[in-house]
């Protein structure tokens, strides 16, 4: 009875404390049987070990097999890497095999645990994709773990941005494939546009194992992967950029406080109209002109060089704000890219249109089995459950963490904060203790590096501008006397060992207190703060962390605009009262809420689009693999088809029919996406008539979608009448139909509007403030 009560209490406790987490006790039992096998496995030769692993393929995958796999895996890792996986790592493997998100602290050997789990899935006969955050990590992990896989008889491959289609096809054909989320996503998107089965590189999805799961599944998921292709004409308007450059803020245009929108004032609009030659921008006929002006204004007023993008080799490169690194092959949509190029007086590159898109949820949802690992999962456990139906398993560290996390140090102004940071670095640096400074953007890291140079502290700067060597630099961040300034995620996935990569000065550095991590401000969420802190104190090493923040930080200004200090700052501008701390915490919580809302909103709207895409893709697959195109076109346009059958072989005709149908299907989908984007932009207005925007979005989108198959047929028949058929199929170019060539990805933002109730409330608040202010004025 008592035991039962305890169990009930335990369940309830778990329910209350940690939503969506997993109970580990059952798996701990299994560890014993793995230990017991170890002695026997040690005696096997390498070939025998591989054979043992291969034999597991024929068995049902139950707990016994899992234990055996863990035993074999441990032995393989010991031989291949000279690293015997700890018990906690094997616990992680078992949790991954159970389809959970595993939380393991930094330096606990996630990569190895992930590899063993991937091998476990491969042995079950399922193709495994290991998704990491970037190409470097995908390649490094695949090569690093290669010997382990080899001993287990599992083949492994990797894809990166520079892979050729053949390399990709080969990599995807392996048991385990490593790749970044965007590479795997874009390979899928490109496959979905293939006009020939032989062009496709991927295969049926089986298992996905997500490395840095919170980063991929939550942070990256706010923005869908959008595949764009160059459209026929490049639209640039250098004239508009020139006009916009002369506009002055305040008089001619205005900006949001949060820097998301800019718009022309009445006067500004007049100036632009006169400069463009007396057109009425708002008549509805010059919408394209107006759009160009808006894009130019956006580029001019909201995008800052070295924060949002950098210019290198005469090209604009976007910076991924969540990771502080260059986003390769990424561009801004809707003419904004061209506007930025015009702003920087660069040669315009081709512009494009959205061909297809998929959200991270949609991508992950294709895999029947999903699991993943990260250092910080509990904070997003609720979201992982909501968006992916995943549970979190917390793996205890092998040796407890002894890092000392100091409370925040708060200042009234950014200047005071930065002075204090530099002073702190200088004084700690004198002792030789290594320091890692995490900044929030590229510009901040450069500024700080300059200030440190002025204070005679030599430091290494790690940001989007030299990301080629960042892993090597980060690995040295724990060396004696090292000072490293880094943007948020630079070098993530690389261990920082005390005393440098070889650990030569380990004890000397440990005596000084280990690595000190300094944050120059709160990140968008406390989880990102924790990730930064987690860089210190790996594997029971000593370490410390401290965050600096000020009331003038962007985050505080944006999300807690009425923040005021609760006490007078001291001479250095330091604030040590609880009110200030509360405001800083509050601002971060609001920011977290906003991020979640954006994520949820994106998902609600993309779900329908992805559903429609899925339905259309089934149709597309049929066109691609069967002779449906022939039957449809022959039925739609019998006379012309008759003519063609006399002139050409059946095979040529089948090819031509397929090309025509697929061309129109893809084109129609591109148009549909643009239509949906347009509707999406105004759908919030429906709330004015007390309608639910998301429902109205469905109501608008669905009937239009239902007409698509007929329209494809009509257009295809039209083309068939005109087109010439040659040995290579239909000569579509000759009738002016060109398939998009180069592809890239789009940086997309989502602007969630405030609800009406919210606005009404704000009005009341403004009124009260006015009344209060009025009475105060009257009293004095």
């Amino acid at each position, binding site marked *: 009875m008592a035991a039962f009560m305890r169990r009930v209490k335990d369940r309830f406790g778990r329910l209350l404390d940690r939503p969506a987490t997993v109970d580990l006790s059952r798996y701990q039992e299994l560890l014993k049987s793995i230990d017991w096998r170890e002695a026997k496995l040690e005696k096997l030769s390498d070939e025998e070990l591989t054979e043992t692993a291969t034999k597991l393929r024929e068995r049902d995958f139950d707990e016994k097999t899992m234990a055996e796999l863990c035993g074999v895996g441990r032995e393989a890792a010991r031989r291949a890497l000279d690293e015997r996986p700890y018990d906690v790592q094997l616990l992680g493997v078992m949790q991954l095999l159970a389809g959970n998100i595993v939380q393991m602290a930094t330096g606990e050997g996630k990569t190895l645990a992930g590899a063993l789990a991937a091998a476990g899935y491969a042995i079950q006969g399922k193709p495994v994709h290991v998704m990491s955050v970037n190409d470097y990590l995908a390649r490094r992990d695949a090569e690093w773990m290669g010997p382990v896989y080899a001993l287990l008889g599992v083949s492994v491959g990797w894809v990166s941005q520079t892979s050729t289609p053949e390399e990709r096809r080969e990599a995807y054909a392996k048991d385990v494939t490593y790749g970044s989320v965007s590479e795997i996503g874009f390979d899928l998107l490109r496959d979905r546009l293939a006009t020939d089965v032989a062009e496709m590189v991927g295969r049926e999805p089986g298992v996905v194992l997500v490395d840095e799961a919170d980063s991929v599944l939550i942070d990256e998921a706010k923005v869908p992967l959008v595949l764009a292709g160059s459209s026929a004409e490049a639209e640039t308007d250098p004239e508009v950029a020139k006009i916009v450059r002369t506009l002055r803020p305040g008089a001619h245009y205005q900006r949001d406080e949060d820097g998301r929108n800019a718009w022309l004032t*009445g006067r500004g609009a007049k100036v632009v109209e006169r400069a463009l030659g007396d057109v009425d921008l708002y008549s509805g006929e010059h919408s394209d002109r107006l759009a160009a002006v808006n894009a130019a204004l956006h580029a001019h007023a909201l995008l800052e060089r070295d924060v949002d993008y950098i210019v290198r080799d005469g090209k604009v490169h976007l910076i991924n704000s969540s990771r502080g690194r260059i986003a390769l092959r990424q561009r801004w949509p809707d003419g904004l890219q061209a506007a930025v190029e015009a702003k920087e007086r660069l040669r315009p590159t081709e512009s494009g249109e959205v061909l297809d898109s998929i959200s991270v949820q949609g991508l992950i949802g294709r895999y029947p089995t999903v699991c993943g690992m990260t250092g910080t999962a509990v904070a997003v456990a609720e979201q992982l459950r909501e968006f992916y139906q995943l549970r979190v398993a917390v793996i205890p560290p092998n040796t407890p963490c002894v890092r000392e996390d100091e409370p925040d140090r708060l200042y009234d102004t950014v200047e005071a904060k930065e002075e204090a940071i530099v002073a702190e670095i200088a004084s700690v640096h004198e002792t030789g203790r290594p320091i890692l400074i995490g900044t929030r953007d590229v510009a901040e890291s450069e500024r700080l590096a300059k200030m440190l140079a002025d204070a005679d502290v030599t430091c290494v700067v790690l940001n989007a501008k030299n990301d080629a060597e960042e892993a090597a630099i980060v690995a040295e961040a724990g060396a004696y006397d090292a000072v490293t300034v880094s943007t948020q995620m630079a070098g993530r996935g690389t261990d920082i060992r005390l005393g440098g990569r070889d650990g030569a000065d380990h004890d000397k550095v440990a005596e000084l207190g280990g690595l000190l991590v300094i944050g120059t401000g709160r990140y968008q969420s406390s989880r990102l703060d924790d990730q930064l802190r987690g860089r210190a104190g790996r594997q029971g090493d000593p370490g410390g962390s401290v965050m600096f923040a000020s009331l003038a930080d962007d985050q505080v200004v944006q999300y807690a605009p009425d923040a005021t200090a609760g006490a007078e700052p001291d001479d250095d501008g330091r604030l040590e009262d609880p009110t200030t701390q509360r405001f800083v915490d509050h601002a971060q*919580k609001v920011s977290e809420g906003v991020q979640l809302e954006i994520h949820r909103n994106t998902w609600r709207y993309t779900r329908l689009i992805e559903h429609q895409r899925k*339905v259309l893709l089934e149709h597309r697959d049929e066109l691609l693999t069967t002779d449906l195109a022939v039957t449809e076109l022959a039925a739609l346009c019998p006379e012309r088809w008759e003519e063609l059958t006399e002139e050409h072989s059946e095979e040529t005709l089948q090819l031509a029919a397929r090309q025509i149908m697929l061309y129109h299907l893809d084109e129609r989908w591109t*148009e549909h996406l643009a239509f949906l984007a347009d*509707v999406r932009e105004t759908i919030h207005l429906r709330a004015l008539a007390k309608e639910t925007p998301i429902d109205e979005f*469905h109501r608008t989108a669905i009937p239009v979608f239902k007409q698509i198959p007929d329209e494809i047929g009509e257009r295809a028949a039209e083309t068939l009448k005109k087109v010439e058929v040659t040995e290579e199929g239909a000569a579509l170019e000759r009738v002016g139909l060109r398939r998009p060539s180069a592809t890239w990805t789009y940086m997309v933002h989502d*602007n969630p509007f405030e609800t009406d109730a919210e606005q009404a*409330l704000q009005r009341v608040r403004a009124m009260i403030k006015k009344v209060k202010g009025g009475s105060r004025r009257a009293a004095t």
Partner: protein
Amino acid sequence: MLSAFRSALATPDLRRKILFVLGIVAVYRVGAMLPSPGVSYPNIQKCIEGVDNQSIYQLLNLFSGGALLQLSVFALGIMPYITASIIIQLLRVVIPRFEQLHKEGQSGQAKLTQYTRYLTIGLGVLQATGIVAMADRGQLFGECPDPVIPDSTVFTLAIIVLTMTAGTALIMWFGELITERGIGNGMSLLIFVNIAARIPAEGGNILQNAGGLVFGIVCLFGLLIIVAVVFLEQGQRRIPVQYAKRMVGRRMYGGTSTYLPMKVNQAGVIPIIFASSLLYLPDLITRLAGDTNSWWARFVADHLTSQSDWVHIAFYFAMIIFFTYFYISIQFNPNERADDMKRYGGFIPGIRPGRPTAEYLSFVLSRITLPGSIYLGIIAVLPNFFLDLTGDGQNQNFPFGGAAVLIMVGVGLDTVKQIESQLMQRNYEGFLK
């Protein structure tokens, strides 16, 4: 419409949701008729028959589906929950901590919901105590000789208060369950159920008092009103808008699907509730003042209180029109809307952003509000013309009239729309063939 329902029932997921809602509604109705322990059921029935329908609790009674005067387990209905959520919303303006919580997204809002629930319980205790106290002193039914609570010890009274409070908590839970797992908004649906539940009783009343012919006419008339309300509720003026953020070259997309809608009845049911509450005031004042002989008191009694009097009807009508304009001017701010559109790069073709857009919007708004307000007025006063037919006992809270029909149709339309959109999302069958 009917086919929509048929296919809704054919979709397993949707069917489960609809059955779930129906199940909750059934439980809810049982609770609304179940007398609280210690209440004498026969005595209550006697008292209710003799009750004066002009009672100020009439509106409350309507919203609680008649459960209030029955002193049933669910006597308080959904009102405490609604009141609590309104109070919490308003408190956000005064208490900065609440505002901070609201802004902190899901976790903060969950905390606010929790506060709302506590407040609901608090309000439930208060209201239950008030009603029980009044019932105990015989004030609830005016001059009713039979004791409603025969054994009026403190213990019994406390039990009744406890029961009603528990009932409130249960209703709150029902409402949330419907919103979460069923279809539509739980709170509105429960109000809908309450009002709809009065129809048979009131109809029966008419049948008894006025006979079959009148009953038939009233039914027909009620049906006509409902049709008219449904028709007008869906009336919209759609102002086209363009968002020129996107450069897509070749052609314009969105087309007719990007517009700013304005409803004919933008104000909803609020003006009717305002107007009718205000019309009670003079009567209340004269009663409180206690003089019955001044010209004012006589005027009030003859013309304002009597609902079939033309003065009353005219006042009522005029006030509704006034309040419609008043409420819309608070609720819809053309300047802000225009400002918003400007910020995000939107405009109405042919009209410059900023002030000209605001002026255009308010012009359209005032044009559309006139028929809207007249329509509201007519819907609200119509039943008053039939008082002679239906007997004196009926006032405008009669379920076929005014506020009740508007609420019912509004909630009904919303729910059907939701079912429909869920259906559309699921039904792609037959798409490709």
